[in-house]
């Protein structure tokens, strides 16, 4: 885990260098990274299986309970192996799929960042840390989905995914903070032992609902499912990675992780089962209406995610076991099928299954892999898919009252799976046709090996479930169920109810296949229905937001600096007046009047520098003179700072004044000539506002001086700046050491502001000064 943490830093630092290296040279390091991580996690296998857990913690901002804490148990290891293992194949696959793409290096970077964020998410042991990795996956998936950034569809899908998952992320953060406060700790492994405390707390319900919202958006549950099919605008390897083993499983992982803390209550069960059931049904129904292979697979992913949520909601040991096996099976099958779709797209240039025929003739290895993956997806003996399907059926039937209803939903989802499996595994490749679809690009080894390996893995897991899958699944089950359960996976259960159900599923699936073309013909008639779907609601909100804000801006942004300044000033005056409304403290000026006797000559000189300056400022008709006078006033203020013992502030003020004058001079010749266009009464208005502001500031400053300030801060910094900060200049020690984090935030803002300023100025220049 130390390695996994440390490896993040070099990747971050390598980003600017990776930008300059051509993509094809990056394949080896990019594929080695997940491979090394996979091997590294494998070294923990034996100890995790024997029941050990590992935790590593580094303090980050301990005052805010934010620590970089990592925790490795069966569940995290299960997901970490999935993420890093699939990462290797995706990297290898992309090398050929995106061969010659000018931004391939950037692609590897995004993918590595995404993978590391996912790993961080499943390994995190601190609530805030988990949230940060959660958001990192959202951001990096935004970059991945919008990878073809010259395509507007791709951009808007990426934005949609970011907005939906980001919204859920905010809910999640609130839920996490509530959970941390309720449980009294932000460390997840400690929280896991405090389930009873959390569940009996009055804030349990809001925390649960917020966390569920976060998980539902990430895992594309109804009504947030719409971002997932749109996200297939990403290159196929990205869809394969995001939809199979990683992004969408994050929500499932989160809920599985928190099952001992939050799970088991009625709200949990009903919400998860209901939402999961709706999603599973909806995904299945949407999947049969599409002709684009990727859209079909994306919609079956939604359906599978719904099934996973149902299993979490049922929460019996059998259901949780089925959950884990299904996660593994689904990841293998779905990733393989997505990659095969990518192969077909790469070779023929289309993903419309109606125009694809007889592909096996020219794409033999892909065809074999497709058939194997489809068999596993359909749940055929002896693949892992079969075991998982049997377990799903058993778990739903054992779920009590609503068992049959849940069973029928899972059943429908599986019938659709069989239909899809027949299309991809058989119809596209094997039937003999006179004119097979022509192949433009042959598929190389990099394209055929990854799906082949995944399909073979599904076969191997299915043939030898006892050796290969049971130990890991068992150790992953323990943290969810809260106790160690002994499980046994086997391929042959005898002539049970499950087997009969499987056969029924197969028959029904074949029947649906025969009428599939009619369903597709019928589906355009459903289009009016989609106009009221969540996707349209999202579009409505987003376009409404853009229109509304442009209207608002046209009202409040007049473009005149004077109106902005007067708005700011009046707001401030109003706020001060509001807070002092009831009890206006009177000024006691005797002290100040006495102090007037002590005014030194040089202070008076400065005063006489400023006041005539102001007078000339009002009278002048030239910008240059106005700027110069402003400079004089600024310098005089800086001198005041020096007189009163703040040399740092004075130096900054002097430099800023100089820069302001210089910058003004630089832009001076672009400004229109100086004219008094406003009416005289308006000028009186501004004079009034200025006088009001000046009077208020004077009043407040005098008032503040009247009450002595009791603060230990000065004492603390004075005492500690040399001892702890190794510096005698307190201001600087505070800036770079004691409050260094604030300064870091400030300079980040400064950098972002500079980018914004450049963008704005460039925009003006490019449009030729037009608005």
């Amino acid at each position, binding site marked *: 885990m130390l390695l996994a943490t440390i490896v993040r*830093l070099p990747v971050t*630092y390598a980003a*600017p260098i990776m930008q300059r290296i051509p993509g094809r040279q990056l394949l080896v390091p990019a594929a080695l990274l997940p491979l090394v991580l996979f091997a590294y996690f494998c070294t923990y296998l034996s100890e995790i299986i024997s029941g050990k857990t590992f935790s590593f913690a*580094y*303090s*980050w*901002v*301990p005052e805010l309970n934010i620590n970089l804490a990592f925790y490795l148990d069966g569940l995290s290891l299960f997901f970490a192996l999935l993420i890093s293992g699939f990462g290797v194949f995706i990297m290898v696959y992309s090398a050929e799929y995106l061969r010659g793409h000018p931004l391939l290096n950037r692609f590897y970077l995004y993918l590595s960042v995404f993978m590391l964020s996912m790993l961080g998410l499943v390994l995190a042991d601190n609530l805030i840390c988990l949230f940060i990795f959660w958001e990192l996956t959202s951001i990096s998936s935004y970059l991945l989905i919008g990878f073809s950034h010259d395509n507007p569809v791709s951009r808007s899908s990426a934005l949609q995914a970011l907005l939906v998952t980001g919204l859920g992320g905010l809910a999640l953060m609130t839920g996490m903070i509530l959970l941390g406060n309720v449980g009294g700790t932000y460390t997840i492994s400690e929280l896991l032992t405090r389930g009873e405390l959390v569940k009996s707390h009055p804030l349990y319900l809001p925390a649960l609902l917020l966390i569920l919202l976060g998980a539902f958006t990430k895992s594309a549950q109804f009504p947030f499912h719409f971002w997932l099919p749109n996200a297939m605008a990403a290159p196929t390897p990205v869809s394969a990675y995001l939809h199979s083993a990683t992004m969408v499983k994050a929500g499932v992982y989160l809920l599985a992780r928190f099952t001992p803390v939050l799970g088991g209550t009625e709200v949990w069960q009903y919400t998860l089962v209901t939402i999961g059931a709706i999603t599973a049904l909806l995904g299945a129904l949407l999947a049969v209406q599409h002709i684009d292979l990727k859209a079909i697979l994306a919609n079956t992913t939604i359906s599978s995610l719904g099934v996973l949520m149902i299993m979490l909601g049922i929460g019996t040991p059998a259901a949780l076991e089925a959950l884990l096996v299904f996660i593994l099976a689904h990841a293998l099958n779905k990733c393989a099928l997505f990659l095969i779709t990518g192969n077909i797209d790469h070779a023929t240039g289309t993903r419309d299954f109606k125009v694809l025929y007889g592909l096996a003739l020219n794409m033999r290895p892909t065809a074999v892999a497709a058939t194997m993956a489809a068999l596993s997806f359909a749940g055929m003996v002896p693949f892992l898919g079969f075991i998982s399907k049997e377990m799903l059926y058993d778990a739903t039937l054992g779920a009590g009252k609503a068992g049959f209803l849940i069973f029928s939903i899972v059943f429908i989802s599986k019938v659709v799976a069989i239909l899809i499996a027949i299309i991809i595994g058989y119809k596209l490749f094997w039937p003999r046709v006179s004119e097979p679809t022509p192949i433009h690009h042959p598929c190389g080894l990099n394209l055929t090996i990854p799906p082949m390996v995944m399909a073979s893995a599904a076969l191997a897991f299915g043939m030898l479930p006892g050796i290969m899958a049971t130990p890991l699944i068992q150790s992953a089950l323990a943290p969810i169920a809260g106790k160690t359960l002994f499980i046994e996976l086997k391929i042959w259960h005898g002539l049970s109810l499950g087997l009969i159900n499987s056969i029924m599923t197969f028959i029904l699936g074949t029947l649906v296949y025969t009428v599939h073309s009619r369903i597709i013909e019928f589906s355009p008639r459903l289009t009016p229905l989609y106009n009221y779907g969540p996707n349209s609601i999202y579009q409505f909100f987003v376009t409404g937001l853009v229109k509304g804000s442009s209207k608002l801006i046209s009202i409040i942004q007049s473009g005149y600096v004077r109106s902005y300044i007067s708005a700011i000033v009046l707001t401030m005056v109003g706020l001060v007046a509001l807070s002092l409304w009831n009890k206006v403290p009177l000024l006691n000026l005797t002290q100040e009047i006495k102090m007037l006797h002590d005014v030194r000559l040089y202070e008076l000189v400065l005063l006489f520098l400023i006041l005539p300056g102001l007078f000339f400022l009002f009278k002048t008709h030239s910008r240059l003179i106005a700027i110069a006078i402003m400079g004089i006033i600024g310098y005089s203020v800086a001198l005041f700072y020096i007189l009163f013992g703040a*040399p*740092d502030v004075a*130096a*900054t003020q002097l*430099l*800023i004044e*100089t*820069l302001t004058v*210089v*910058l003004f*001079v*630089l*832009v001076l010749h672009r400004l229109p000539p100086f004219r008094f266009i406003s009416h005289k009464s308006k000028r009186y208005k501004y004079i009034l506002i200025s006088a009001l502001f000046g009077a208020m500031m004077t009043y407040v400053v005098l008032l503040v001086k009247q009450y002595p300030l009791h603060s230990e801060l000065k004492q603390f910094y004075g005492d500690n700046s040399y001892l*702890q*900060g*190794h*510096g*005698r*200049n307190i*201001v*600087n*020690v505070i*800036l*770079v*050491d004691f409050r*260094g*984090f604030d*300064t*870091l935030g400030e*300079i*980040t803002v*400064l*950098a972002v*502001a*500079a*980018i914004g*300023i*450049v963008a704005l*100025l*460039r925009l003006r*220049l490019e449009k030729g000064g037009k608005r």
Partner: protein
Amino acid sequence: MKTLVLSVAIKLLIPVFLFFSLYCLFRGHNHPGGGFIGGLIASIAFIFHTMVHGPNRTITSLLKINLYGFEHQPNQSRSLFLMRMQRVKRWRRRCALDDKKSGKPDFRLDPFDLIATGLLVAATSGIVGFLLQEPYMSSSWFAFSVPFIGSIGTPVIFDIGVYLLVLGVVLKITFVMSEE
């Protein structure tokens, strides 16, 4: 705004400004000064140059390094080769101002690079504490001190980051604003 006095003066003053800014940067921990002030002083040097000569000239003469190759002849002595190289460099540098399409490799420092480097340096200085099993951005100091700079520690590195960033921000804004 091309005045002879200013253009000669700024030529002489740029090194002074830069050294003074570094001086301010490093004395900041014990006396008035620091990364922010240092960065502003350094940027003033460039800004005056821009005022006199325009942003393009500033970039080509101060923020760009042209590299010219020159083949070593087989029967040429080493010292002669180096001397010629030096001569060519000086000669070509003057040419390069007019002849932009020379196609020779040049290294241009964009102010955005300064901003990025500054942010990177500042954020990285916090990681040192992290690697020593302490919270992020806890300071650590070397036991020895370097003449002219003083004691070296992560806050000093952080301040260097601030210096670079401020310099970059001011330069970028100036260049964009003064561009025609």
